[in-house]
Protein backbone atom coordinates (compact mmCIF):
# COMPACT_ATOMS: atom_id res chain seq x y z
CA UNK A 1 0.00 0.00 0.00
CA UNK A 2 1.38 3.37 -0.94
CA UNK A 3 1.25 6.02 1.71
CA UNK A 4 -0.43 9.16 0.56
CA UNK A 5 1.04 12.35 1.77
CA UNK A 6 -1.86 13.84 3.74
CA UNK A 7 -2.13 17.36 5.04
CA UNK A 8 -2.55 17.82 8.79
CA UNK A 9 -6.13 17.65 9.97
CA UNK A 10 -5.40 20.94 11.71
CA UNK A 11 -4.83 22.78 8.44
CA UNK A 12 -7.93 24.71 7.47
CA UNK A 13 -8.57 26.59 4.28
CA UNK A 14 -9.30 30.31 4.79
CA UNK A 15 -13.02 29.72 4.11
CA UNK A 16 -13.25 26.93 6.63
CA UNK A 17 -11.32 28.89 9.23
CA UNK A 18 -13.56 31.88 8.66
CA UNK A 19 -16.65 29.69 9.06
CA UNK A 20 -15.43 28.32 12.38
CA UNK A 21 -14.68 31.86 13.60
CA UNK A 22 -18.24 32.84 12.82
CA UNK A 23 -19.65 29.63 14.25
CA UNK A 24 -17.97 30.32 17.58
CA UNK A 25 -19.56 33.77 17.63
CA UNK A 26 -23.03 32.22 17.59
CA UNK A 27 -24.95 31.90 20.85
CA UNK A 28 -24.25 28.80 22.92
CA UNK A 29 -27.18 26.38 22.97
CA UNK A 30 -25.83 23.56 25.06
CA UNK A 31 -23.10 23.82 27.62
CA UNK A 32 -21.77 20.81 29.47
CA UNK A 33 -19.82 21.76 32.55
CA UNK A 34 -17.59 19.35 34.48
CA UNK A 35 -20.04 16.52 33.93
CA UNK A 36 -19.34 13.24 35.71
CA UNK A 37 -21.16 9.96 36.18
CA UNK A 38 -20.31 7.04 38.43
CA UNK A 39 -22.21 3.79 38.61
CA UNK A 40 -22.25 1.48 41.60
CA UNK A 41 -21.37 -2.07 40.75
CA UNK A 42 -20.62 -5.15 42.86
CA UNK A 43 -16.94 -4.51 42.09
CA UNK A 44 -17.18 -1.00 43.49
CA UNK A 45 -17.99 2.32 41.84
CA UNK A 46 -17.25 2.64 38.12
CA UNK A 47 -16.53 6.02 36.58
CA UNK A 48 -18.37 6.16 33.25
CA UNK A 49 -17.82 9.85 32.56
CA UNK A 50 -15.28 12.18 34.11
CA UNK A 51 -15.05 15.93 33.82
CA UNK A 52 -16.69 16.40 30.42
CA UNK A 53 -16.71 19.99 29.18
CA UNK A 54 -17.89 21.33 25.86
CA UNK A 55 -20.14 23.91 24.25
CA UNK A 56 -22.43 23.59 21.28
CA UNK A 57 -23.32 26.67 19.26
CA UNK A 58 -26.58 27.40 17.53
CA UNK A 59 -27.17 25.35 14.38
CA UNK A 60 -23.93 23.48 14.88
CA UNK A 61 -23.61 19.80 14.04
CA UNK A 62 -21.53 17.99 16.65
CA UNK A 63 -20.64 14.31 16.46
CA UNK A 64 -19.53 12.34 19.48
CA UNK A 65 -17.29 9.41 18.79
CA UNK A 66 -15.26 7.04 20.91
CA UNK A 67 -14.37 3.42 21.49
CA UNK A 68 -16.99 1.13 22.96
CA UNK A 69 -17.34 1.63 26.68
CA UNK A 70 -16.41 5.31 26.54
CA UNK A 71 -19.80 6.32 27.89
CA UNK A 72 -21.10 8.11 24.79
CA UNK A 73 -24.56 6.65 25.27
CA UNK A 74 -24.50 7.59 28.95
CA UNK A 75 -23.55 11.12 27.95
CA UNK A 76 -26.45 11.55 25.53
CA UNK A 77 -28.90 9.96 28.00
CA UNK A 78 -27.83 12.48 30.63
CA UNK A 79 -28.25 15.32 28.13
CA UNK A 80 -31.75 14.03 27.32
CA UNK A 81 -32.52 13.86 31.04
CA UNK A 82 -33.09 10.10 31.00
CA UNK A 83 -30.27 9.61 33.48
CA UNK A 84 -29.02 11.82 36.28
CA UNK A 85 -25.37 12.89 36.38
CA UNK A 86 -23.40 12.47 39.61
CA UNK A 87 -21.54 15.75 39.22
CA UNK A 88 -21.43 18.79 37.00
CA UNK A 89 -24.16 20.53 35.08
CA UNK A 90 -25.97 20.59 31.76
CA UNK A 91 -27.03 24.06 30.63
CA UNK A 92 -29.49 24.64 27.82
CA UNK A 93 -29.61 28.29 26.77
CA UNK A 94 -27.74 29.03 29.98
CA UNK A 95 -30.30 27.35 32.21
CA UNK A 96 -29.61 24.15 34.10
CA UNK A 97 -31.84 21.25 33.00
CA UNK A 98 -33.03 18.21 34.91
CA UNK A 99 -35.20 15.41 33.65
CA UNK A 100 -36.44 14.88 30.12
CA UNK A 101 -38.32 17.59 28.24
CA UNK A 102 -39.51 18.52 24.78
CA UNK A 103 -36.74 21.15 24.44
CA UNK A 104 -34.28 18.29 23.86
CA UNK A 105 -35.55 15.97 21.13
CA UNK A 106 -34.09 12.52 20.89
CA UNK A 107 -33.79 9.90 18.16
CA UNK A 108 -32.83 6.49 19.47
CA UNK A 109 -30.94 3.69 17.77
CA UNK A 110 -33.77 1.20 18.27
CA UNK A 111 -37.05 2.00 16.63
CA UNK A 112 -39.14 3.77 19.23
CA UNK A 113 -42.18 4.73 17.20
CA UNK A 114 -45.40 3.93 19.03
CA UNK A 115 -46.63 0.80 17.26
CA UNK A 116 -50.28 1.52 18.04
CA UNK A 117 -50.26 4.93 16.33
CA UNK A 118 -50.13 5.72 12.63
CA UNK A 119 -47.23 7.73 11.25
CA UNK A 120 -49.29 10.91 11.50
CA UNK A 121 -50.41 10.22 15.08
CA UNK A 122 -46.83 9.43 16.06
CA UNK A 123 -45.68 12.83 14.83
CA UNK A 124 -48.68 14.48 16.51
CA UNK A 125 -47.79 12.89 19.86
CA UNK A 126 -45.41 15.61 21.03
CA UNK A 127 -47.52 18.42 19.54
CA UNK A 128 -50.57 17.30 21.48
CA UNK A 129 -48.54 16.95 24.68
CA UNK A 130 -47.51 20.61 24.32
CA UNK A 131 -51.19 21.54 24.34
CA UNK A 132 -51.78 22.22 20.66
CA UNK A 133 -55.32 21.51 19.54
CA UNK A 134 -55.99 18.57 17.28
CA UNK A 135 -56.30 20.45 14.03
CA UNK A 136 -53.15 22.51 14.45
CA UNK A 137 -51.26 19.42 15.54
CA UNK A 138 -52.50 17.49 12.55
CA UNK A 139 -51.59 20.23 10.14
CA UNK A 140 -48.09 20.64 11.57
CA UNK A 141 -47.57 16.88 11.66
CA UNK A 142 -48.47 16.68 7.97
CA UNK A 143 -45.87 19.26 7.03
CA UNK A 144 -43.15 17.47 9.02
CA UNK A 145 -44.07 14.16 7.42
CA UNK A 146 -43.94 15.87 4.06
CA UNK A 147 -40.48 17.18 4.93
CA UNK A 148 -39.14 13.64 5.40
CA UNK A 149 -40.93 12.54 2.23
CA UNK A 150 -43.45 10.14 3.76
CA UNK A 151 -46.76 11.83 2.94
CA UNK A 152 -47.94 8.68 1.22
CA UNK A 153 -47.49 6.74 4.44
CA UNK A 154 -49.11 9.09 6.94
CA UNK A 155 -51.85 6.58 7.72
CA UNK A 156 -49.57 3.54 7.83
CA UNK A 157 -48.58 1.83 11.05
CA UNK A 158 -44.89 1.58 11.96
CA UNK A 159 -44.69 -2.18 11.31
CA UNK A 160 -45.56 -1.49 7.67
CA UNK A 161 -42.47 0.71 7.20
CA UNK A 162 -38.84 -0.16 6.44
CA UNK A 163 -36.10 0.63 8.95
CA UNK A 164 -35.01 3.79 7.16
CA UNK A 165 -38.59 5.04 6.92
CA UNK A 166 -39.13 4.42 10.62
CA UNK A 167 -36.09 6.52 11.49
CA UNK A 168 -37.31 9.29 9.19
CA UNK A 169 -40.60 9.32 11.09
CA UNK A 170 -38.67 9.32 14.37
CA UNK A 171 -36.72 12.35 13.17
CA UNK A 172 -39.91 14.11 12.06
CA UNK A 173 -41.51 13.29 15.42
CA UNK A 174 -38.57 14.76 17.34
CA UNK A 175 -38.34 17.85 15.10
CA UNK A 176 -42.07 18.56 15.30
CA UNK A 177 -41.57 19.73 18.88
CA UNK A 178 -39.02 22.24 17.55
CA UNK A 179 -36.45 21.30 20.16
CA UNK A 180 -33.49 23.56 20.91
CA UNK A 181 -31.22 20.59 20.31
CA UNK A 182 -31.72 17.28 18.57
CA UNK A 183 -29.91 14.42 20.28
CA UNK A 184 -29.27 11.39 18.08
CA UNK A 185 -27.94 8.17 19.58
CA UNK A 186 -26.47 6.11 16.72
CA UNK A 187 -29.73 6.60 14.82
CA UNK A 188 -28.53 4.87 11.65
CA UNK A 189 -26.61 2.09 13.36
CA UNK A 190 -29.16 -0.60 12.54
CA UNK A 191 -29.54 0.35 8.87
CA UNK A 192 -27.79 -1.21 5.90
CA UNK A 193 -24.97 0.76 4.24
CA UNK A 194 -27.01 2.16 1.34
CA UNK A 195 -29.95 3.28 3.46
CA UNK A 196 -27.53 4.77 5.93
CA UNK A 197 -25.82 6.84 3.23
CA UNK A 198 -29.19 8.10 2.03
CA UNK A 199 -30.28 8.95 5.58
CA UNK A 200 -27.06 10.91 6.12
CA UNK A 201 -27.72 13.18 3.17
CA UNK A 202 -31.40 13.59 4.19
CA UNK A 203 -30.21 14.62 7.63
CA UNK A 204 -27.77 17.18 6.20
CA UNK A 205 -30.61 18.59 4.08
CA UNK A 206 -32.84 18.91 7.08
CA UNK A 207 -30.09 20.48 9.17
CA UNK A 208 -29.28 23.05 6.48
CA UNK A 209 -32.89 24.19 6.21
CA UNK A 210 -34.16 24.11 9.76
CA UNK A 211 -33.10 25.99 12.86
CA UNK A 212 -31.83 23.01 14.80
CA UNK A 213 -28.63 22.13 16.62
CA UNK A 214 -27.62 18.49 16.38
CA UNK A 215 -25.59 16.30 18.69
CA UNK A 216 -25.02 12.99 16.99
CA UNK A 217 -23.44 9.88 18.46
CA UNK A 218 -21.83 7.37 16.16
CA UNK A 219 -19.08 4.81 16.05
CA UNK A 220 -18.66 5.15 12.30
CA UNK A 221 -15.67 7.39 11.54
CA UNK A 222 -16.79 8.23 7.98
CA UNK A 223 -20.21 9.20 9.25
CA UNK A 224 -18.70 11.50 11.88
CA UNK A 225 -16.39 13.30 9.43
CA UNK A 226 -19.09 13.54 6.77
CA UNK A 227 -21.73 15.04 9.04
CA UNK A 228 -19.98 17.06 11.71
CA UNK A 229 -18.77 20.60 12.12
CA UNK A 230 -16.86 19.44 15.14
CA UNK A 231 -16.17 15.98 16.51
CA UNK A 232 -15.95 15.32 20.22
CA UNK A 233 -13.63 12.34 20.68
CA UNK A 234 -14.03 10.47 23.95
CA UNK A 235 -11.71 7.87 25.41
CA UNK A 236 -12.72 4.95 27.58
CA UNK A 237 -12.15 4.02 31.24
CA UNK A 238 -12.99 6.59 32.38
CA UNK A 239 -14.92 8.41 29.66
CA UNK A 240 -13.09 11.66 29.14
CA UNK A 241 -12.82 14.18 26.32
CA UNK A 242 -9.76 13.31 24.32
CA UNK A 243 -9.97 15.99 21.68
CA UNK A 244 -12.49 18.32 20.08
CA UNK A 245 -11.71 18.21 16.37
CA UNK A 246 -12.76 20.95 13.96
CA UNK A 247 -13.50 19.14 10.73
CA UNK A 248 -11.58 20.92 7.92
CA UNK A 249 -13.84 19.53 5.16
CA UNK A 250 -15.66 22.47 3.54
CA UNK A 251 -19.45 22.82 3.37
CA UNK A 252 -21.78 21.95 1.71
CA UNK A 253 -20.83 18.32 2.12
CA UNK A 254 -21.25 15.67 -0.52
CA UNK A 255 -20.23 12.02 -0.83
CA UNK A 256 -17.54 13.10 -3.35
CA UNK A 257 -15.54 14.47 -0.45
CA UNK A 258 -14.98 11.04 1.08
CA UNK A 259 -11.63 10.82 -0.70
CA UNK A 260 -10.56 14.46 -0.36
CA UNK A 261 -7.26 15.05 1.49
CA UNK A 262 -8.96 16.92 4.37
CA UNK A 263 -11.45 14.10 4.84
CA UNK A 264 -8.78 11.42 4.86
CA UNK A 265 -6.55 13.43 7.18
CA UNK A 266 -9.36 13.88 9.69
CA UNK A 267 -10.29 10.24 9.47
CA UNK A 268 -6.67 9.21 9.97
CA UNK A 269 -6.53 11.34 13.09
CA UNK A 270 -9.73 9.77 14.46
CA UNK A 271 -8.32 6.33 13.67
CA UNK A 272 -5.22 7.19 15.65
CA UNK A 273 -7.24 8.39 18.64
CA UNK A 274 -9.77 5.58 18.72
CA UNK A 275 -7.75 2.58 17.63
CA UNK A 276 -4.26 3.19 19.02
CA UNK A 277 -1.65 0.58 17.99
CA UNK A 278 -2.70 -2.61 19.80
CA UNK A 279 -0.72 -4.04 22.64
CA UNK A 280 -0.20 -7.75 22.30
CA UNK A 281 -3.15 -9.76 23.56
CA UNK A 282 -2.68 -13.04 25.36
CA UNK A 283 -2.18 -15.91 22.92
CA UNK A 284 -2.52 -13.78 19.81
CA UNK A 285 0.15 -12.13 17.77
CA UNK A 286 -0.82 -8.66 16.68
CA UNK A 287 -2.65 -8.98 13.40
CA UNK A 288 -3.30 -12.65 12.86
CA UNK A 289 -4.88 -15.64 14.52
CA UNK A 290 -2.76 -18.63 15.41
CA UNK A 291 -3.72 -20.72 12.42
CA UNK A 292 -2.16 -23.76 10.83
CA UNK A 293 -3.05 -25.08 7.40
CA UNK A 294 -6.03 -27.43 7.69
CA UNK A 295 -6.59 -28.16 4.00
CA UNK A 296 -4.61 -31.00 2.36
CA UNK A 297 -1.97 -29.86 -0.15
CA UNK A 298 -3.40 -32.19 -2.80
CA UNK A 299 -6.98 -30.95 -2.32
CA UNK A 300 -8.86 -29.94 -5.43
CA UNK A 301 -8.90 -26.37 -4.13
CA UNK A 302 -5.69 -26.33 -2.13
CA UNK A 303 -5.27 -22.59 -2.11
CA UNK A 304 -7.70 -19.67 -2.15
CA UNK A 305 -5.43 -17.55 -4.36
Amino acid at each position, binding site marked *: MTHLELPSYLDQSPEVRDRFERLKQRPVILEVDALGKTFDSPQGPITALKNINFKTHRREFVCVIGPSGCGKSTLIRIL*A*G*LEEQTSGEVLLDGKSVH*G*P*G*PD*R*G*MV*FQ*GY*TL*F*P*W*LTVKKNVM*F*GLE*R*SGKDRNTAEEEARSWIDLVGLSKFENS*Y*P*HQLSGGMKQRV*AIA*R*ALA*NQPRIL*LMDEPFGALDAQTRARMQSYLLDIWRNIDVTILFITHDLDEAVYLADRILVLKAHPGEVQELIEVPVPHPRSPDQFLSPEFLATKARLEELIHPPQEEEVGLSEEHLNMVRMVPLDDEVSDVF
Partner: protein
Amino acid sequence: MASGWFAVRKELDSRSRLFLGVLSFLIPILLWCLVSYSPYVWHPKMAITEPGGVSYFKPGMQVDRTVFERESEKAQAAGKPLPEGEPANPVYLPAPHEVAAAFYTAFTTEPQRRNEKWLHESLWQSIQVIFWGFFLSSLVGVPLGILAGTYDLASRLSEPFIEFFRYLPAPAFGALAVAILGIHEAPKIAIIFIGTFFQQVLVISNTTRKLDPSLLEAAMTLGAKRLSLLFRVVIPGIVTDLYKDMRILLGWAWTYLIVAELIGTSSGITWFITQQARYKNFENVYAAIIMIGIIGLSTDLILAWLGRRLFPWQRVAKA
Protein backbone atom coordinates in the same frame (compact mmCIF):
# COMPACT_ATOMS: atom_id res chain seq x y z
CA MET B 1 -41.48 -26.68 1.30
CA ALA B 2 -38.37 -28.79 1.39
CA SER B 3 -38.56 -30.41 4.80
CA GLY B 4 -42.36 -30.70 4.84
CA TRP B 5 -44.26 -31.75 7.92
CA PHE B 6 -41.33 -31.91 10.32
CA ALA B 7 -39.57 -28.59 9.68
CA VAL B 8 -38.45 -27.30 13.08
CA ARG B 9 -40.25 -24.13 14.16
CA LYS B 10 -41.59 -23.41 10.69
CA GLU B 11 -45.22 -22.66 10.15
CA LEU B 12 -47.15 -25.03 7.91
CA ASP B 13 -49.25 -23.61 5.09
CA SER B 14 -52.84 -22.73 5.88
CA ARG B 15 -54.40 -25.79 4.25
CA SER B 16 -52.23 -28.17 6.24
CA ARG B 17 -53.00 -26.21 9.41
CA LEU B 18 -56.74 -26.45 8.84
CA PHE B 19 -56.44 -30.14 8.05
CA LEU B 20 -54.49 -30.82 11.23
CA GLY B 21 -56.92 -28.72 13.26
CA VAL B 22 -59.84 -30.82 12.06
CA LEU B 23 -57.79 -33.97 12.63
CA SER B 24 -57.10 -32.96 16.25
CA PHE B 25 -60.85 -33.25 16.86
CA LEU B 26 -61.34 -36.28 14.62
CA ILE B 27 -58.74 -38.47 16.32
CA PRO B 28 -60.38 -38.52 19.78
CA ILE B 29 -63.82 -38.91 18.17
CA LEU B 30 -62.60 -41.84 16.06
CA LEU B 31 -61.07 -43.48 19.13
CA TRP B 32 -64.38 -43.06 20.90
CA CYS B 33 -66.22 -44.62 17.95
CA LEU B 34 -63.77 -47.51 17.87
CA VAL B 35 -64.36 -48.28 21.55
CA SER B 36 -68.14 -47.89 21.17
CA TYR B 37 -68.91 -49.65 17.91
CA SER B 38 -66.38 -52.45 17.68
CA PRO B 39 -67.50 -55.29 20.00
CA TYR B 40 -63.94 -56.64 20.19
CA VAL B 41 -62.51 -53.52 21.78
CA TRP B 42 -63.06 -53.38 25.54
CA HIS B 43 -66.84 -54.03 26.04
CA PRO B 44 -66.42 -55.55 29.52
CA LYS B 45 -70.19 -56.09 30.06
CA MET B 46 -72.91 -58.27 28.56
CA ALA B 47 -76.32 -56.77 27.87
CA ILE B 48 -78.90 -59.56 28.39
CA THR B 49 -81.30 -60.08 25.47
CA GLU B 50 -82.76 -63.44 26.58
CA PRO B 51 -82.56 -64.50 30.29
CA GLY B 52 -82.81 -68.23 29.44
CA GLY B 53 -82.70 -70.37 32.56
CA VAL B 54 -81.00 -67.80 34.82
CA SER B 55 -83.61 -66.67 37.26
CA TYR B 56 -82.26 -63.21 38.10
CA PHE B 57 -81.35 -62.13 34.54
CA LYS B 58 -83.76 -59.67 32.94
CA PRO B 59 -83.78 -58.36 29.35
CA GLY B 60 -81.83 -55.09 29.11
CA MET B 61 -79.81 -55.86 32.22
CA GLN B 62 -76.01 -55.44 32.13
CA VAL B 63 -73.75 -57.94 33.88
CA ASP B 64 -69.98 -58.49 33.92
CA ARG B 65 -68.74 -60.90 31.26
CA THR B 66 -67.32 -63.28 33.89
CA VAL B 67 -70.68 -63.44 35.66
CA PHE B 68 -72.43 -64.14 32.35
CA GLU B 69 -70.03 -66.97 31.47
CA ARG B 70 -70.35 -68.52 34.95
CA GLU B 71 -74.16 -68.45 34.82
CA SER B 72 -74.12 -69.91 31.26
CA GLU B 73 -72.01 -72.82 32.45
CA LYS B 74 -74.33 -73.39 35.43
CA ALA B 75 -77.39 -73.32 33.15
CA GLN B 76 -75.73 -75.75 30.77
CA ALA B 77 -74.88 -78.13 33.62
CA ALA B 78 -78.46 -77.96 34.89
CA GLY B 79 -79.81 -78.53 31.38
CA LYS B 80 -81.74 -75.26 31.38
CA PRO B 81 -81.96 -72.95 28.32
CA LEU B 82 -78.84 -70.80 27.87
CA PRO B 83 -79.03 -67.05 28.47
CA GLU B 84 -78.29 -64.83 25.47
CA GLY B 85 -76.67 -61.39 25.37
CA GLU B 86 -74.36 -59.11 23.47
CA PRO B 87 -71.13 -57.37 24.50
CA ALA B 88 -71.69 -53.86 25.81
CA ASN B 89 -69.82 -50.97 27.33
CA PRO B 90 -70.75 -49.74 30.81
CA VAL B 91 -73.58 -47.19 30.99
CA TYR B 92 -71.15 -44.43 31.86
CA LEU B 93 -69.62 -44.67 28.35
CA PRO B 94 -72.45 -43.98 25.92
CA ALA B 95 -71.79 -44.23 22.19
CA PRO B 96 -71.21 -41.07 20.10
CA HIS B 97 -74.60 -41.26 18.38
CA GLU B 98 -76.37 -41.43 21.75
CA VAL B 99 -74.55 -38.31 22.94
CA ALA B 100 -75.26 -36.59 19.62
CA ALA B 101 -78.96 -37.36 20.04
CA ALA B 102 -78.81 -36.12 23.64
CA PHE B 103 -77.48 -32.82 22.32
CA TYR B 104 -80.86 -32.29 20.73
CA THR B 105 -83.16 -34.05 23.20
CA ALA B 106 -81.55 -32.39 26.24
CA PHE B 107 -82.88 -29.09 24.97
CA THR B 108 -86.33 -30.44 24.05
CA THR B 109 -86.99 -32.60 27.10
CA GLU B 110 -89.26 -31.00 29.63
CA PRO B 111 -87.81 -30.86 33.15
CA GLN B 112 -88.99 -33.69 35.37
CA ARG B 113 -90.37 -31.43 38.10
CA ARG B 114 -92.16 -28.17 37.63
CA ASN B 115 -89.68 -25.98 39.53
CA GLU B 116 -86.73 -27.40 37.64
CA LYS B 117 -85.06 -25.57 34.78
CA TRP B 118 -84.71 -26.37 31.12
CA LEU B 119 -81.16 -27.03 29.91
CA HIS B 120 -80.88 -23.73 28.11
CA GLU B 121 -81.95 -21.95 31.30
CA SER B 122 -79.28 -23.80 33.26
CA LEU B 123 -76.67 -22.86 30.70
CA TRP B 124 -77.72 -19.24 30.72
CA GLN B 125 -77.49 -19.22 34.52
CA SER B 126 -73.92 -20.54 34.31
CA ILE B 127 -72.91 -17.98 31.72
CA GLN B 128 -74.24 -15.21 33.94
CA VAL B 129 -72.28 -16.45 36.94
CA ILE B 130 -69.08 -16.57 34.85
CA PHE B 131 -69.76 -13.15 33.40
CA TRP B 132 -70.34 -11.41 36.73
CA GLY B 133 -67.45 -13.15 38.44
CA PHE B 134 -65.07 -12.26 35.63
CA PHE B 135 -66.43 -8.76 35.15
CA LEU B 136 -66.16 -7.81 38.82
CA SER B 137 -62.69 -9.30 39.04
CA SER B 138 -61.56 -7.38 35.95
CA LEU B 139 -63.10 -4.16 37.23
CA VAL B 140 -60.59 -4.14 40.08
CA GLY B 141 -57.90 -6.49 38.81
CA VAL B 142 -57.08 -4.79 35.50
CA PRO B 143 -56.47 -1.28 36.91
CA LEU B 144 -54.60 -2.70 39.89
CA GLY B 145 -52.45 -4.88 37.64
CA ILE B 146 -51.58 -1.94 35.38
CA LEU B 147 -50.75 0.28 38.35
CA ALA B 148 -48.60 -2.43 39.94
CA GLY B 149 -46.77 -2.93 36.64
CA THR B 150 -46.19 0.81 36.23
CA TYR B 151 -45.41 2.09 39.72
CA ASP B 152 -43.11 0.25 42.06
CA LEU B 153 -45.09 1.73 44.95
CA ALA B 154 -48.29 -0.02 43.87
CA SER B 155 -46.39 -3.21 43.15
CA ARG B 156 -44.67 -3.37 46.56
CA LEU B 157 -47.87 -2.50 48.34
CA SER B 158 -50.08 -5.11 46.69
CA GLU B 159 -48.10 -7.95 45.20
CA PRO B 160 -46.59 -9.63 48.29
CA PHE B 161 -50.08 -10.15 49.75
CA ILE B 162 -51.51 -11.25 46.42
CA GLU B 163 -48.67 -13.73 45.95
CA PHE B 164 -49.71 -15.24 49.28
CA PHE B 165 -53.41 -15.17 48.62
CA ARG B 166 -53.26 -16.80 45.22
CA TYR B 167 -52.06 -20.02 46.84
CA LEU B 168 -55.29 -20.30 48.79
CA PRO B 169 -57.59 -22.49 46.71
CA ALA B 170 -60.76 -20.64 45.79
CA PRO B 171 -63.12 -23.53 46.68
CA ALA B 172 -61.77 -23.37 50.25
CA PHE B 173 -63.76 -20.17 50.61
CA GLY B 174 -67.01 -21.90 49.68
CA ALA B 175 -68.44 -22.28 53.17
CA LEU B 176 -67.38 -18.78 54.07
CA ALA B 177 -68.93 -17.34 50.93
CA VAL B 178 -72.26 -19.04 51.70
CA ALA B 179 -72.20 -17.81 55.30
CA ILE B 180 -71.62 -14.24 54.17
CA LEU B 181 -73.46 -14.06 50.85
CA GLY B 182 -76.30 -16.56 51.18
CA ILE B 183 -77.01 -19.63 49.11
CA HIS B 184 -77.90 -18.29 45.68
CA GLU B 185 -75.81 -16.65 42.97
CA ALA B 186 -73.65 -14.33 45.07
CA PRO B 187 -71.34 -16.93 46.68
CA LYS B 188 -70.80 -18.59 43.29
CA ILE B 189 -69.79 -15.28 41.74
CA ALA B 190 -67.50 -14.74 44.74
CA ILE B 191 -65.71 -18.06 44.12
CA ILE B 192 -65.10 -17.17 40.46
CA PHE B 193 -63.89 -13.76 41.61
CA ILE B 194 -61.45 -15.24 44.13
CA GLY B 195 -60.24 -17.79 41.60
CA THR B 196 -59.61 -15.15 38.93
CA PHE B 197 -58.68 -11.93 40.66
CA PHE B 198 -55.34 -12.74 42.25
CA GLN B 199 -53.94 -14.43 39.16
CA GLN B 200 -55.27 -11.57 37.08
CA VAL B 201 -53.41 -8.86 39.00
CA LEU B 202 -50.12 -10.75 38.77
CA VAL B 203 -50.47 -11.66 35.10
CA ILE B 204 -51.42 -8.13 34.11
CA SER B 205 -48.72 -6.45 36.17
CA ASN B 206 -46.21 -8.74 34.48
CA THR B 207 -47.54 -7.89 31.05
CA THR B 208 -47.33 -4.19 31.91
CA ARG B 209 -43.71 -4.57 32.98
CA LYS B 210 -42.86 -6.12 29.63
CA LEU B 211 -43.58 -2.86 27.79
CA ASP B 212 -40.44 -1.72 25.99
CA PRO B 213 -38.96 0.96 28.30
CA SER B 214 -37.52 2.85 25.34
CA LEU B 215 -41.08 3.73 24.30
CA LEU B 216 -41.52 5.43 27.68
CA GLU B 217 -38.19 7.20 27.27
CA ALA B 218 -39.13 8.38 23.79
CA ALA B 219 -42.44 9.67 25.13
CA MET B 220 -40.68 11.56 27.91
CA THR B 221 -38.34 13.29 25.46
CA LEU B 222 -41.48 14.31 23.56
CA GLY B 223 -42.90 15.99 26.64
CA ALA B 224 -45.16 13.28 28.09
CA LYS B 225 -45.50 13.43 31.86
CA ARG B 226 -47.13 11.33 34.61
CA LEU B 227 -50.74 10.79 33.57
CA SER B 228 -50.15 11.14 29.86
CA LEU B 229 -47.38 8.55 30.18
CA LEU B 230 -49.84 6.18 31.80
CA PHE B 231 -52.81 6.82 29.53
CA ARG B 232 -51.05 7.58 26.24
CA VAL B 233 -48.14 5.17 26.38
CA VAL B 234 -48.47 2.44 29.00
CA ILE B 235 -52.10 1.50 28.40
CA PRO B 236 -52.13 1.63 24.60
CA GLY B 237 -48.73 -0.05 24.63
CA ILE B 238 -49.94 -3.11 26.50
CA VAL B 239 -53.55 -3.29 25.39
CA THR B 240 -53.01 -6.04 22.81
CA ASP B 241 -51.17 -8.26 25.27
CA LEU B 242 -53.70 -7.39 27.95
CA TYR B 243 -56.45 -8.56 25.67
CA LYS B 244 -54.67 -11.89 25.13
CA ASP B 245 -54.23 -12.27 28.90
CA MET B 246 -57.93 -11.65 29.42
CA ARG B 247 -58.79 -14.42 26.98
CA ILE B 248 -56.62 -16.87 28.90
CA LEU B 249 -57.98 -15.68 32.25
CA LEU B 250 -61.54 -16.12 31.05
CA GLY B 251 -60.64 -19.74 30.37
CA TRP B 252 -59.45 -20.07 33.96
CA ALA B 253 -62.70 -18.58 35.22
CA TRP B 254 -64.59 -21.42 33.50
CA THR B 255 -62.53 -23.99 35.39
CA TYR B 256 -63.87 -22.59 38.67
CA LEU B 257 -67.46 -22.74 37.47
CA ILE B 258 -68.27 -26.32 38.44
CA VAL B 259 -66.92 -25.94 41.97
CA ALA B 260 -68.65 -22.60 42.35
CA GLU B 261 -72.00 -24.00 41.28
CA LEU B 262 -71.85 -26.79 43.83
CA ILE B 263 -71.80 -24.20 46.61
CA GLY B 264 -75.07 -23.34 48.32
CA THR B 265 -77.96 -24.49 46.17
CA SER B 266 -76.58 -26.36 43.21
CA SER B 267 -77.43 -24.49 40.01
CA GLY B 268 -76.67 -23.95 36.37
CA ILE B 269 -75.00 -26.50 34.18
CA THR B 270 -73.56 -28.28 37.23
CA TRP B 271 -77.01 -28.88 38.62
CA PHE B 272 -78.02 -30.32 35.26
CA ILE B 273 -74.97 -32.59 35.17
CA THR B 274 -75.39 -33.97 38.70
CA GLN B 275 -79.12 -34.41 38.19
CA GLN B 276 -78.67 -36.35 34.95
CA ALA B 277 -75.91 -38.47 36.46
CA ARG B 278 -78.30 -39.37 39.27
CA TYR B 279 -80.86 -40.62 36.70
CA LYS B 280 -78.00 -42.43 34.93
CA ASN B 281 -78.61 -40.38 31.75
CA PHE B 282 -74.92 -40.35 31.02
CA GLU B 283 -75.37 -39.28 27.41
CA ASN B 284 -76.85 -36.04 28.78
CA VAL B 285 -73.89 -35.64 31.11
CA TYR B 286 -71.49 -35.93 28.19
CA ALA B 287 -73.56 -33.59 26.09
CA ALA B 288 -73.50 -30.97 28.86
CA ILE B 289 -69.75 -31.29 29.39
CA ILE B 290 -69.10 -30.97 25.66
CA MET B 291 -71.41 -27.95 25.58
CA ILE B 292 -69.19 -26.18 28.12
CA GLY B 293 -66.24 -26.84 25.84
CA ILE B 294 -68.06 -25.53 22.81
CA ILE B 295 -69.17 -22.36 24.59
CA GLY B 296 -65.65 -21.77 25.92
CA LEU B 297 -63.90 -22.34 22.61
CA SER B 298 -66.36 -20.33 20.56
CA THR B 299 -66.18 -17.37 22.97
CA ASP B 300 -62.42 -17.45 22.62
CA LEU B 301 -62.58 -17.61 18.82
CA ILE B 302 -65.01 -14.71 18.72
CA LEU B 303 -62.79 -12.68 21.03
CA ALA B 304 -59.74 -13.47 18.89
CA TRP B 305 -61.57 -12.33 15.78
CA LEU B 306 -62.76 -9.20 17.58
CA GLY B 307 -59.19 -8.52 18.72
CA ARG B 308 -57.94 -8.45 15.16
CA ARG B 309 -60.59 -5.84 14.36
CA LEU B 310 -59.90 -3.74 17.45
CA PHE B 311 -56.12 -3.58 17.14
CA PRO B 312 -55.26 -3.02 13.48
CA TRP B 313 -51.64 -2.22 14.28
CA GLN B 314 -50.91 -5.78 15.30
CA ARG B 315 -48.91 -7.81 12.86
CA VAL B 316 -50.98 -10.56 11.26
CA ALA B 317 -52.09 -12.42 14.35
CA LYS B 318 -50.85 -15.93 14.84
CA ALA B 319 -53.50 -18.01 16.52
